[in-house]
């Protein structure tokens, strides 16, 4: 796919994913520096940038976390570099301090932050509307409605950023990131942006007296946005019914107007400049309007701000949208929602919908992949906690694939899970309560990527203050959930270079932690280790080492054949009750309902063979392959 991002063919039309279009936009803008931490739905952007960086003469980095990425970008700006930082909503929140300080001191070389929001939290723990961060930090924000705009807004944002010496944020949402559309390519620069010597008296410092100039800059952006060609209007010259929309809201509104055939009755105001809002442009349309429907992703941000503009100008307008329930208050927008809201707006009943012919999909809970080491880890943790203590263990989750352990996949492992890297800190606090008689074992965990991302200060804290807890690092050698991006433990960089991997064990030990390593696939041995650690006091670190199953199958490990001896399987009889398929729950352990016996799904099974160790009837057999074989 990378050729579309580097081909020098102005005017050529390419079908592009939104994320890809951002990459193309960055290349057209001649960036010098890109940094990110993976997060859906925008993880692919730096993946692609990394692959073309050396060819296009810029540097790309998978940073240890978003704060590192964002601050690195700010740093390069001092040398007049054009830098792009890509984060998801939660990542942007991580960077709140850097963002607010950055806004106050501004930038020299252009700096663009691409943030991706995940309405309905398809690949996230929570919804968040990052537009509030722009408002809060007094930073300009743009939002594209399609891949073409996603590409075009990047060079536009860099130009504005350099002209007004301020960071510019581009907000994407999942459908924009992953949706595809035609993109007309622009010209590529001959070479990347020109770096400059950092002079002795140049300053990018966050000081309070910069507050007023910062607000002045924001007004300059407002003026610039009054003439922003990405803001547009379609519909009757004077519309008393108006839809104001941004991002996907524009697409769904346009579709609803077309399907209801009321394009000539209802106006559609598209706002690409989300913050600060171009008040004059907006007022031009508000003055004619009696009723305004606002279509936007996540929160009623535009709705409230348009209400404020109307109020300030004594306009009497009825506003509807996500704020008043005309559109759902939470979750992703859908074309049908807009159909219904636009029908209400024009006072016409909703046309009857054709019956859907397709059978509904089965509802399924999220589950660990076949052969996932986390399944074994949480199976063993559940057992070890029951064995080692009469009171329930207190388990704190964290962010990564293992967040699914809170569901059936992990036997409802944890009582609390906050944000990325929070597990160790929640546990640290609980681990101090032993002095007041709390005698429940406290356990938390994080993955290897999360370990580098946000657990290190927490580990320092827990170690220094001798918290009474077990900290498990679930080291599957991958940032698995977002697609196997490298992290400092992997020994590879975004550019594909091999470097010395950092040892999680050595880091923990250097912090004074007692470290044990275990293999979750060694169910018997690791259960003993867990039980032993749970019975101890103080801070204990357990590194669960077993590679991600998907990673292993990617590396083409010699696969072992696992099968169920049908004569031995006792099915749902007393003594088993479908233990492999129902309790162990690996997608590879399937069920033959006709014969009421277990079967292995050869397509899903990766050959880890753990279920063979657990089968109470000894019916699961493993054949061939060397279990220790590593490609």
């Amino acid at each position, binding site marked *: 796919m990378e050729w579309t991002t580097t081909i020098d063919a102005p005017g050529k039309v390419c079908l592009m994913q939104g994320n890809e279009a951002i990459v193309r936009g960055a290349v057209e803008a001649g960036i010098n520096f890109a940094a990110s931490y993976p997060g859906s739905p925008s993880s692919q952007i730096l993946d692609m940038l990394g692959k073309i960086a050396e060819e296009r003469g810029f540097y790309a980095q998978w940073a240890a976390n978003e704060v590192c990425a964002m601050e690195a970008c700010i740093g390069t700006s001092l040398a007049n570099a054009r830098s792009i930082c890509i984060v998801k909503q939660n990542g942007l929140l991580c960077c709140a301090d850097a963002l607010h300080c950055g806004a106050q001191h501004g930038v020299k070389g252009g700096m663009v932050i691409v943030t991706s929001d995940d309405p309905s939290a398809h690949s996230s723990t929570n919804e968040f509307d990052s537009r509030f961060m722009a408002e809060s930090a007094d930073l300009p924000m743009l939002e594209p409605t399609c891949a073409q705009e996603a590409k075009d807004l990047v060079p536009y944002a860099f130009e504005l950023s350099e002209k007004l010496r301020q960071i510019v944020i581009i907000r994407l949402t999942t459908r924009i990131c992953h949706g595809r559309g035609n993109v007309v390519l622009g010209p590529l620069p001959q070479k990347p942006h020109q770096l400059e010597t950092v002079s002795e008296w140049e300053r990018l410092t966050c000081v309070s007296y910069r507050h007023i100039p910062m607000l002045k800059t924001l007004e300059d952006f407002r003026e610039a946005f009054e003439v922003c060609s990405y803001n547009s209007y379609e519909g009757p010259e004077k519309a008393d019914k108006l839809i104001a929309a941004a991002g996907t809201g524009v697409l769904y509104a346009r579709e609803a107007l077309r399907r209801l055939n009321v394009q000539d009755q209802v106006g559609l105001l598209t706002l690409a400049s989300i913050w600060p809002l171009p008040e004059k442009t907006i007022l031009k349309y508000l003055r004619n309007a009696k009723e305004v429907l606002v279509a936007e992703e996540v929160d009623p941000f535009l709705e409230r701000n348009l209400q404020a503009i109307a109020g300030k100008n004594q306009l009497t307008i009825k506003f509807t949208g996500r704020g008043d329930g005309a559109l759902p208050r939470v979750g992703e927008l859908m074309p049908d929602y807009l159909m219904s809201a636009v029908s209400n707006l024009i006072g016409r009943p909703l046309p009857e919908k054709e019956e859907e012919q397709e059978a509904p999909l089965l509802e399924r809970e999220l589950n660990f992949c076949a052969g996932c080491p986390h399944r074994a880890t949480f199976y063993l943790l*559940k*057992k070890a906690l*029951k*064995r*080692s203590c*009469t009171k329930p263990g207190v388990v704190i989750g964290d962010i990564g694939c293992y967040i699914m352990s809170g569901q059936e996949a992990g*036997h409802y492992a944890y009582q609390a899970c906050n944000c990325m890297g929070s597990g160790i800190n929640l546990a640290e606090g609980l681990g101090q309560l032993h002095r007041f008689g709390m005698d429940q074992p406290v356990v938390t965990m994080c993955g290897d990527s999360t370990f580098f991302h946000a657990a290190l200060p927490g580990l320092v804290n827990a170690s220094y203050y001798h918290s009474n807890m077990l900290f498990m690092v679930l080291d599957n050698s991958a940032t698995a959930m977002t697609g196997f991006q490298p992290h400092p433990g992997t020994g590879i960089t975004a550019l594909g270079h091999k470097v010395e991997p950092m040892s999680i064990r050595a880091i923990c030990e250097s912090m004074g932690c007692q470290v044990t390593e275990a293999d979750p696939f060694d169910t018997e041995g690791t259960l003993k280790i867990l039980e032993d650690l749970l019975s101890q006091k103080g801070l204990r670190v357990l590194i669960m080492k077993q590679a991600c199953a998907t990673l292993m199958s990617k590396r083409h490990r010699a696969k072992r054949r696992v099968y169920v001896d049908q004569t031995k399987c006792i099915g*749902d*009889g*007393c*003594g*088993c*009750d479908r*233990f492999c398929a*129902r*309790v162990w729950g690996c997608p590879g352990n399937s069920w033959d309902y006709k014969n009421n016996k277990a079967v292995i799904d050869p397509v899903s099974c990766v050959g880890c063979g753990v279920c063979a160790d*657990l089968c*109470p009837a000894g019916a699961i057999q493993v054949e061939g392959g060397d279990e220790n074989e590593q490609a």
Partner: protein
Amino acid sequence: MISTFALDSTVLQEGLCTTCGACQGLCPYWDCVKGRTITYFECQRQDGRCQRFCPRMPVDLKALMEKAFPGENIIPEIGPFRSLLLTRAADPDIRAGSQHGGTVTALMELALREGLIDSAVLTKSKNTLDPEGVLVTDPDKVRQCSGSSFQIAPALAQLNRALADDRCHKIGVVGTPCKTLALYKMRYDPLPDNDNHAGNIGLILGLFCGWGLDWDGIRSLTEKYADAGSVTHADIPPSKYHSYEIRAGEKTVSVNLDEVTPLVRNACHYCADMTCEFSDLSVGGARSKDGWDVDKGWNQVIVRTKLGQDLIELAKAKGVLEFKEVPDTALDKIKSASSGKKRTAMRYLHEKYGSESLGYLQPSADWLKTITD
């Protein structure tokens, strides 16, 4: 009711579980750690061996007894009864390592040696603590299991594993009343589609039991009064001594029984069986006019079935046991003590379930009432 839930809610949560092990060794759902029965995951079967075998699930003792001991003389207070004996092992080595007279050790050795059984599920403890069930096939290894522990071991888990293996076909079992009741449930109330190879259970040798003790509690108490690693014997002399004796090395420490009573396992308060009524023969400490110093080297034995009687006669013929005269009053004393335990159990059960219910013994309520009134 879903099996794991049934046991968990009606037995474990209610504090009725003695950790006999009857629900264990059968499946991946039940296990036991240090006298604590645990369930790891939920089994969703409606019926299962765990709830059928559990001696704390509802049971009609009279009906089961009539089914299990057809034609035997059943004395309501103490169950099937052929004779009462006072015995001890003839071999002084056995006596030296045993709780009282070494009768159980001598009989199990004999049964194994003579092929009455091909294996035995026994309980082995180290320094009277942390007992575990073991499967013994070598008669010479029986005496390694001599001596008692006041912690109840989940020995039936071991039995269940041995039954599933189906390699031993006449397995002798030594157990407390909760365990042997479970064995008769295995025999006479099997799961329709899974007999658990209960036919492989052979001789059942019961132990008189007042109660078991909390695992952690008795460990702490032992550690408080003795070097736990050198304890060789623990016993409770007749009630007038009001003590719990711990022998460690050359020394015997006498602990006031008041320190021990609170450690009695809650589940044992609800037990209505002192003499291990469900067994081929049952063995306890002797009580006679000779006094404790003599009695502590003897056992009293209730012979209950033909199998039990055959074993005793074989022991007599082989000179494995020594016998002495049983005082005339002995049987009445046992009956009275046994009724006392039944009354206590009923009192505890009524306290827990109200005056209208005896909980798991409700199906046996009428019978128990006639015995204790």
